């Protein structure tokens, strides 16, 4: 079976998951106790007002009809009206999502770029000082609450040392919005002042976000590196004259990277979760603020929208990782759908 058919198979497998996800979120939002209309308007609103809002939101229809209506709307870019902003949720998400996406992407990149070498160094010096230090760091990294680490780093780098801005996304006039990604937009506008400022603002939150996945990636890389290094083929290749360095950085690394990838996929989900907390601490104008506000205001359409987008990001991230996995490890392509 070729790589191409593997990619197609994997992509198609994501569709039922998306449909299931949308059903789940929709059902949860409807089945759980509490009347969305009543919740939205508050306990002092008149019964008539609640009734008319119910009508407007289609809450009288059977749930299946409601779901189909919602999905039909979704494909036309209509995710319902947000009760807090009075705009279409789709428009709101389009506005807030790029900031969150920029944050989690840079966060994940930092985690990968630092985590993998850390794991390799530890794995190559098993049970020595480097290894113990890196393992200790890994334990600290996964055990620190992200929002607490954020506050500590903020205290240190922003308030105490004054090296980096404490909150916000940019300190100068923002470049014209094209992609919504500040780093990209500022480069497109060749506004390097804005780029520098955006980068400075991004550094602390992204690094905080990266801590836990970085630690996790380092741990996984270390253990799979050690495991691979003890396999027969390492001895076999070595005995046929291939230098140790090449075996370590070509053969072992590629084989162990496959299992590191699975961890990266999982971590991506956790990272999105922590982004919700980090954005609050750093006043990052992303989806989390929007989501939390929506939750506190019982804005059901916005909540469904936010959860759905997060789910889709997670599904896509998993898909990308699966495809990379297949690229790095030919064994996967020949396996079944399980694993």
């Amino acid at each position, binding site marked *: 079976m070729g790589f191409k058919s593997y990619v197609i198979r994997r992509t198609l497998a994501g569709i039922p998951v998306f449909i299931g996800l949308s059903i789940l979120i929709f059902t949860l939002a409807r089945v759980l106790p509490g009347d969305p209309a009543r919740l939205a308007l508050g306990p002092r609103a008149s019964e008539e007002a609640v009734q008319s809002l119910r009508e407007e939101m289609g809450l009288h229809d059977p749930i299946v009809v409601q779901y189909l209506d919602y999905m039909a709307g979704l494909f036309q870019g209509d995710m319902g009206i947000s009760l807090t902003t009075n705009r279409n949720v789709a428009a709101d998400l389009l506005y807030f999502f790029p900031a969150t996406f920029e944050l989690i992407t840079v966060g994940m990149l930092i985690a990968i770029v630092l985590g993998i070498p850390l794991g390799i160094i530890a794995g190559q010096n098993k049970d020595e000082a480097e290894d113990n230090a890196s393992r200790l760091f890994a334990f600290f990294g996964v055990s620190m609450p992200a929002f607490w680490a954020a506050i500590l780093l903020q205290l240190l780098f922003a308030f105490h040392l004054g090296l980096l801005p404490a909150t916000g996304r940019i300190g100068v006039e923002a470049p014209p919005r094209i992609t919504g990604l500040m780093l990209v937009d500022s480069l497109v506008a060749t506004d390097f002042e804005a780029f520098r400022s955006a980068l400075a603002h991004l550094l602390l939150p992204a690094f905080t976000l990266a801590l836990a996945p970085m630690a996790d990636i380092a741990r996984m890389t270390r253990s799979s590196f050690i495991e691979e290094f*003890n*396999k*027969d*083929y390492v*001895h*076999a*290749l*070595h*005995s*046929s*004259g*291939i*230098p140790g*360095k*090449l075996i370590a*950085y*070509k*053969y072992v690394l*590629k*084989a162990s990277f*496959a299992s590191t990838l699975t961890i990266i996929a999982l971590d991506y989900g956790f990272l999105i979760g922590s982004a919700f907390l980090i954005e609050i601490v750093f006043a990052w104008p992303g989806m989390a603020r929007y989501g939390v506000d929506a939750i506190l205001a019982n804005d059901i359409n916005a909540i469904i929208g936010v959860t759905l987008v997060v789910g889709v990001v997670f599904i896509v991230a998993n898909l990308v990782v699966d495809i990379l996995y297949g690229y*790095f*490890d*030919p*064994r996967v392509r*020949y396996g079944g759908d399980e694993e």
Partner: protein
Amino acid sequence: MTDPILELRDLEVHFNTFDGRAEVINGVDLTVEEGETVAIVGESGCGKSVTAETVMGMLPQPPGEIVNGELYYRDEELLGDETAHERVKTESLGMIFQDPMTSLSPVFTVGEMMRDVMTYQNKTNVGWLEIFRNIVGRRDVSEADMHDRCIELLDRLQIPDPEGILDRYPIELSGGMRQRVLIAMAMLGEPEFLIADEPTTALDVTVQDQILDLLSEQVKREDLSMLYITHNLGVARRIADRIYVMYAGEIAEVGSCEDILDEPLHPYSRGLVDSVPKLTEFDREGIEGLIPNYTEPPSGCRFHPRCPAAVAGECDVTRPPRFELADGREVACLLYEDGLSPAAANEIAATEADTNRGSGTTHGRSSGPRESDESIESLTQRMEDANE
């Protein structure tokens, strides 16, 4: 006789385990002459693979520990000199492993591995730049030359469609094909000395035969020396010039193939030959029991609890040295202490065995844990019966 190409002297290897210190190799001497194929034969767990790993310098340490011993390759001591061992390993030794499934990198194609073997043949110091260039896919050696050599070698190992094989991943190949590729890889490094650790055990019987033929063909063609590890006397007879019979980390008997198979001297070898059905005229008795516990090995001769000819008060007290009976014919058994002829020793052994059997104290059935192992067998049998 020429100088030996490989010589192992008084090797002792211990393993630190949860149950204590296991004395897995207990004073092994072994020589391989230039151009000779030597087989180490013994049941699983007797320490033959540990011996091979020590020679290859790939004994996992810890838990393993080389307590004593010297290893000479062309008169150069290797166990005390890691750099020399490393150099000899990459330049002169080649290894063929038991399990072709795990002995090839699962994430690179056969061709990629073979090209790397050729590129770094006999190169000791490889710089970081070159490593990096390799990883991004650049090499200094001509791809076309390498390609031709690969094809030629794969052809020689009777691999159909060698062109196609080069672009395949190991998972796409059958066990026999993988083992051929593995042999090709070992040959690519142009070794002088091959170590083969049960290379045919994981394969089907018919494929085993082909691989064995191919391997001995290569050895002859390149005039290689080889150390061949197996538990199968039949295989040893086909491929080896001389046989070392190993039991519980000690060498029980040494001799040419004919010597060992036609006239086994050590009671253990006799049992071993005995358990090969078509080769024997004896009653098929085989050997009772299992390899002993290495953390508390039996006193005296390690074989005495299972030995039908064991003499109480002697075999369980004195560790038998290796008696040289003739040129290249050695046996570690007290029966041969007084330079006894094999025939006479055989007779003594037979009477001793009879007395033991008569008195009902077959040593092989005395200790506790072994009993439970036998019961496990019978239990499995019953479960299988129930299944059917």
